[in-house]
């Protein structure tokens, strides 16, 4: 997967996430040049959705 604008292959980098007042970090693919973050469908509907629900139920 490449960043279309920068024409750079994505690299995995620790990225911070926020939801409902909680902050945590996770390694996700980002463009090494512009820093744009890529969230795959699997991550969004898998782990992220799971954490979102846990925080909502907290």
């Amino acid at each position: 997967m490449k960043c279309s604008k920068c024409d750079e292959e994505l690299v995995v980098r620790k990225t911070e996430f926020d939801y409902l007042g909680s902050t945590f970090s996770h390694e996700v693919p980002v463009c090494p040049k512009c820093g744009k973050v890529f969230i795959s469908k699997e991550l969004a509907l898998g782990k992220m959705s799971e954490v979102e629900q846990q925080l909502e139920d907290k």
Partner: protein
Amino acid sequence: MSQEITQSYTQSFVQNCIRGEPPPCAAACPFKLDVKDFLTKTGKGKWTSAYKTYRNAVFFPSVVAELCPEPCKNVCNIREKPIEMLSIEKAVLSHVKKRGADYYAIPPKDNRVAVAGASIAGLACALGLAQKQYQVTVFDTLDGWGGSLRGHPKFEVFDEDFRSQFSAVKVEFIFGAEIDERRSEFETVYEAPDNGDPIYEIVEGAFEAVRIETYLQTNKYPEPQINTPERPADSRSGSEFSEQETQAEASRCLQCDCSACIDACVMLRQFRKEPRRLALEFFTDAHVNPPLNTHSLTREAYSCTDCGMCKAACPKDIDLGILFYEYRKMRAENDTVPTAFHDVFLRRMKKYNAEGRDIPPSGDSKYVFFPGCSVSTEIPAASKRVYAYLREKFGAGLLEHCCGSPEKWAGLDNEQLTVNSEQYTYIYACPSCYETLHETYPELKLISVYELLDDFDKPEIPRSELTIFHACSARENETLQRSVEKLAAASGIEYQGSELSCCGYGGQTQLANPSLFRDTVNERKALNPNPYLVYCANCRDTFKRQGKECYHVLELLFPSDDGELKSPLIIPDDAREYMSDNLISESDILEVINNAEDSGDKFVAPDGSFTASLERGALTYWVEYRVDSGNGNFEIISAYYHRMKFRQEGQR
């Protein structure tokens, strides 16, 4: 400002609830026997356990099983064939192997109590006190116990029962003597009655034992029994049951408890929380301050469809739903709402309000058509044609503005809708609009569009397979319900009865609890196998999206002759289904793609497909797509979103 969820406010919900209260049989029982427990044990053939439950309640089982007028039978909810309680009681006595009394390991007390009269009332009082280890002496002028029961043909059985029950306690019996000269030896004396009403005399004697104990401990007598128990007609029956028959008869018990609201509400069934407990949890949650509060009720609170079915079903008229609503308001005021639950609905509402038209009536017309966002967006062609008719016939104006339901369901205050309640009568098309507008502006004059189509040159609609689905928001609006039925009939629709329920849309719970939403819709879809005829555009949208054939009255009366708008998106069925379940619209997708194509901000996969994202409100949308350069279409691979926000490099 919302109604504060105070203790008294919460209590007003829980105090009247009869769930968990004794069933009618136990309430009618002179001894308040736990009938459900007794019959459960009996049904399982646990004779000893059933016997103990019975004996502990009635004191003298053989007497009661013989003489009880069986008032429970008169109130049994199995009206056509009430449970044969007395026969079961007798059967338990004959099937139980161990009938001995239980010994109570309580230290003996010094207090001396006398009972004047060994009638069954005196015996019950003596037994009650002796079990608590008081020093009890019973006097009777006769030669033995039982009073007037001594002449009963079954006295031998009763006598055996008395022996058995007194076998584990110490009581001094003095027969053939008056108490008179010894009265001063005792702290108190119970003058036991004997007037030939043995069942209620046991109750009285047992109650007197409690009063005497209170007196001995506090030196004060409590009030005598306030309610003299009602003496119902004798409904005794005389079947004799074998062990198997006894179990079978006991197993017929419905284990009655009120579950009206739970039966009516998919949500209450799924959360499996007692309604009272829910109400108390709302109170607790509302009164613990951050950061200690857990908001453990978030999912519940945002899963209520605000349909009023719990209230409609409740025999005590308790409106549990309003507590959910007040709680949502409180969360909104405290700014602790998971915004993603309602964000999509609120953004759609704002867009509708921003783009909506506000056209004054023509001439001296007093009418303004208020189609509401659902009718305008779900059946736009019909909405336009209805307006054209109303404009021509009545000179009606048009106000395309949200009634405020999405804000209400999110716990927010209504965005200020400007209505001219003095001058105009608003013509509504959606029952939810009526409900919300009426609640917000009680003085506003409202009339449904379905009442104004008498003179409309209606097309003949020869349908005979439809069933009218009255929306939950029309429950209390009889005029609306009848108008729609009349209109349908006048258009040639021979509808097959009607249902009044909630499609599942209300409360906008779809994103807060997707699986519950689906289960609710499926349950309501299955209420009737016929296709539905609806007059709430939300019902139409909800049912159609979940595969139920469904028609809005207005789309049948004002059929569209416009061709479908051509979309540049090619969306495969699985992606479309996912979009529908997650409320991702084609315009959301187009926004993401247009932004990516304009800015170049997108990712490209080795197979040449693109993935782009766009943050909109509480959600970040992602679309995987291919560009068909030949005709400018976009082929969608998938569309999804997440609620978390991420920080890109350089962002704080």
